[in-house]
């Protein structure tokens, strides 16, 4: 029941939002329903843990072996919690933004939530593909209709780029399906596949390209900075906070356990791409003057680290990735909230034109610094937990000979992250204020609440991550068992 509600509530509230005319009503109702989704997700995490309520199966296209099968496992719980949490945060923090045709905007946002939930819940490959695309269509309309000047062309590029990856993944899924002994799209059948090593090698790329475009991983990342820059910030929050996790998640659930040999063989290549992407993106972030592009590039760097940790195929690394997906999600949303309100208040995103905000807006400065430090991964913050586990995983990796190089490169990236983040903080908040920023900024209560919630999570997870570790332990162990090449070869 729970997974059904997680999809149906955003879906229905989204569809009805199209017909609400009053902007205030539609905003409140969107917030209300996204809050209900959050409550359901938390219930699924706490009260209904380990119950049969967490899964749902219905027949759909039985003749080709596809069923409507959704389930909340450990990783799914975490990501659904992220999705359920992200939307109320976005709605709260952008409460004061005006949107033309607000009913369409909120309707599309809620529909996107339904699609995202479906991706994380789907236990059937065709259903997974369905929701993967369904999350994309509202994003296309959202980015094209509201945002900066170049948004139409930029979003088109984003859509076609992502769509290419998706259809290649579709071919991969079809091929895998045809190899299953019982002709079924169900995830358990996919996990029982024993495809020859040779076939796995090219199948890997079909699936990996789709995920690599989504995350994005260098060199398939060129759509991302433009899209993030030109979209309206609320949409960017969801794109970078939740949607990129679809790519990482897809690798964990649908790539690693299904094609273990290829995952192992291509691990080094993929990790090199991730590492190059991390360093490249961090260097570019240092040179950025535009606040949104800086955050966009920093996102590429962080996701690159997650991808590298996945290919290390260690318990610590995999669990670290799962936790970091959640952490990065809320941290980056925090950064986007600050970027949004700076742009809204001062009309510019250029770092060179800002300065000295801390003098008149101490609350904003404090909250931002905490979120930014969480992004870098300072101990006491949630970012540290995820990053430490990932570093541990990469260093302890038994599958690659380059583990030292990888760990050192990842470490350099963290240092670079500190450089551009602290640089940005210093230039924007400290230093001399100019005529533009002199009046300062009194934070609205809704922004304080949103950032406050994020900060709470930052510290709670940073100091007491046990809850998350417990949730993800079983799933990561299971995935790694599936992905183990030696057990695979015995299948």
């Amino acid at each position: 029941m729970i997974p059904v509600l997680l999809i149906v509530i955003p879906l229905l509230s989204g569809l009805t939002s199209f017909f609400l005319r009053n902007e205030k009503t539609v905003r409140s109702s969107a917030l209300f329903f996204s809050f209900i989704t959050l409550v359901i997700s938390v219930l699924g995490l706490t009260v209904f843990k380990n119950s049969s309520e967490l899964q749902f199966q219905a027949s759909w296209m039985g003749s080709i072996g596809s069923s409507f099968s959704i389930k909340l496992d450990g990783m799914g719980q975490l990501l659904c919690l992220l999705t359920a949490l992200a939307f109320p945060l976005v709605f709260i923090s952008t409460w004061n933004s005006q949107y033309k045709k607000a009913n369409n905007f909120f309707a599309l946002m809620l529909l996107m939530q339904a699609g995202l939930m479906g991706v994380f819940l789907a236990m059937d490959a065709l259903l997974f593909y369905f929701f993967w695309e369904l999350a994309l269509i509202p994003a296309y309309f959202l980015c094209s209709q509201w945002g900066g000047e170049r948004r139409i062309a930029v979003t088109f590029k984003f859509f076609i780029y992502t769509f290419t990856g998706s259809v290649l993944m579709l071919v991969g899924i079809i091929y895998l399906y045809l190899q299953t002994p019982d002709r079924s799209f169900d995830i358990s059948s996919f996990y029982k596949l024993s495809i020859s090593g040779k076939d796995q090698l090219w199948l890997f790329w079909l699936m990996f390209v789709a995920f690599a475009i989504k995350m994005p991983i260098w060199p398939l990342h060129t759509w991302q900075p433009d899209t993030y820059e030109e979209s309206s910030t609320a949409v960017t929050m969801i794109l970078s906070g939740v949607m990129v996790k679809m790519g990482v998640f897809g690798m964990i659930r649908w790539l690693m356990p299904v094609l273990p040999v290829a995952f192992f063989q291509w691990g080094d290549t993929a990790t090199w791409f991730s590492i190059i992407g991390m360093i490249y993106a961090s260097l570019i972030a240092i040179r950025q003057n535009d606040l949104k592009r800086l955050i966009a590039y920093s996102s590429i760097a962080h996701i690159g680290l997650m991808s590298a940790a996945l290919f290390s195929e260690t318990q610590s690394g995999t669990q670290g990735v799962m936790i970091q997906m959640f952490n990065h999600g809320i941290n980056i949303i925090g950064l986007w909230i600050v970027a949004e309100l700076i742009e809204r208040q001062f009309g510019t995103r250029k770092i060179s034109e800002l300065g000295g905000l801390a003098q008149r807006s101490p609350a904003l400065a404090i909250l931002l610094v905490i979120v930014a430090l969480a992004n870098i991964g300072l101990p006491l913050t949630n970012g540290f937990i995820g990053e430490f586990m990932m570093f541990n995983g990469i260093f302890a990796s038994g599958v690659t000979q380059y583990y030292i190089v990888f760990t050192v490169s990842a470490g350099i990236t963290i240092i670079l992250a500190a450089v551009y983040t602290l640089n940005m903080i210093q230039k924007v908040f400290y230093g001399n204020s100019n005529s533009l920023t002199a009046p300062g900024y009194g934070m609205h209560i809704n922004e304080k609440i949103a950032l406050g919630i994020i900060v709470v999570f930052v510290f709670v997870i940073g100091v007491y991550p046990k809850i998350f570790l417990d949730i993800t332990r079983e799933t990561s162990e299971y995935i790694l068992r599936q992905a183990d090449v030696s057990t695979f070869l015995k299948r």
Partner: protein
Amino acid sequence: MMFSSFMLKSKKAIRTIAIGGLLVVLIANILEMSGTVFFKIDVKGMIAFDRFGYLFNSIILASTLIYFLLSAKDMEKVGLNYGEYFALIFFVLCGITLVSSFHSLLILFLGIEIISIPLYILTGSDKKNLKSNEASLKYFLLGAFSTGLMLMGIALIYGSTGTFSTADNVINLSKPSALLIGGMLLLMFSMSFKVSAAPFHFWTPDVYDGAPTVFTSFMATIVKLAAFIAFIRLFYDAFGNIQTQWRLLIALITALTLLIGNITAVFQQSVKRMLAYSSISQAGFMMLAIFAMNTEAKEGLLLYAAAYCLATIGIFAVLVKLKDYSFEGFNGFATHQPVLAAVTTIFLLSLAGIPLTAGFLAKFYMLMAAAETGKYLWLVIFAVLMAVVSVYYYFRVIQAMYFKTGEEQPLEITSVFKWMLVVLAALVILLGIYPKLILYWLYF
């Protein structure tokens, strides 16, 4: 129907008779599918109606019914002979019935001709328009040429097997004679012409563009699918056993069709011409069914028939109402006509193959069928990459409608028209979630 044009002056009465007659035929078809027999005629084994044929007929008849309901009024504007247009369409439907259930090459030829000749007339029915005349002549000459090829192919096959029948697995030789291969190739080329597969597609853009838009709608959907059914019946029944001989050739034709159809569509400036080229690229996808030749292919072709017909008839119904057929003509359509823009978007998404629409499942079945053959996986990957290209030109219309501003064009639309389109769009989405609605009938 034919005589109604003499007897009735009222356009409305003609319309009503046409729709009523079509309903009768459709219901009769569905009843026969479930077992009732109306007439008993000895056809000497030349025609045999199986489930597949019945179901396809039902889809075609239902699509024509929808087409009549949406566009019958627009046919008035084409010329004076209102009743004749309906009569000609009914003749075409008769030919389609023959062609979907033939077991003899003679009937195939007869059916194809019965389909084509009324279409030559319909193409040229806008007598004052030079483009229409040119399109009709072009269609007639090239169509007659391809039918000539077909006849030659049939003659060669008769020469090598001694029979016209396609049913008896007569063509079961492990080493087919050159005569047989020659006949088969000629048939393949002539059928490829009819379905506008590359490199035999050159007539399509000019003919579709020159014909009056209402009739383009009919030709691009219903007639093309009839040709496909003929194609798949011919090759499934007759040449199924010597598949290794022609599979590579079909794969090449498919790839070429997809390539040319999609790439040229990208550069079009007129939505009508873009839809003509898009029909070529959709034909490319349907060719995958002929390439695959298995159960999924048949199911997929039926689903594709339904999805493609519904979506394209819907889009053409909207296009006919517009005066300006260029992409700029759609600018700002969403602000002036939100309902029409929304349904057009759904139709375009279905043609592009986005999940939740019938078009996606249709393409999915095709890809699955093609992948199942285990051969030429490059074709499957090529097909999906071309599908990505198609997204470009379909979405150009969506972008013009929603994200650009333009002047309002005055349109004569009734709310009945809008509601019918909404029902059509709902059907497209319903089929996209629950394809069993159609596929169920294939087996029960």
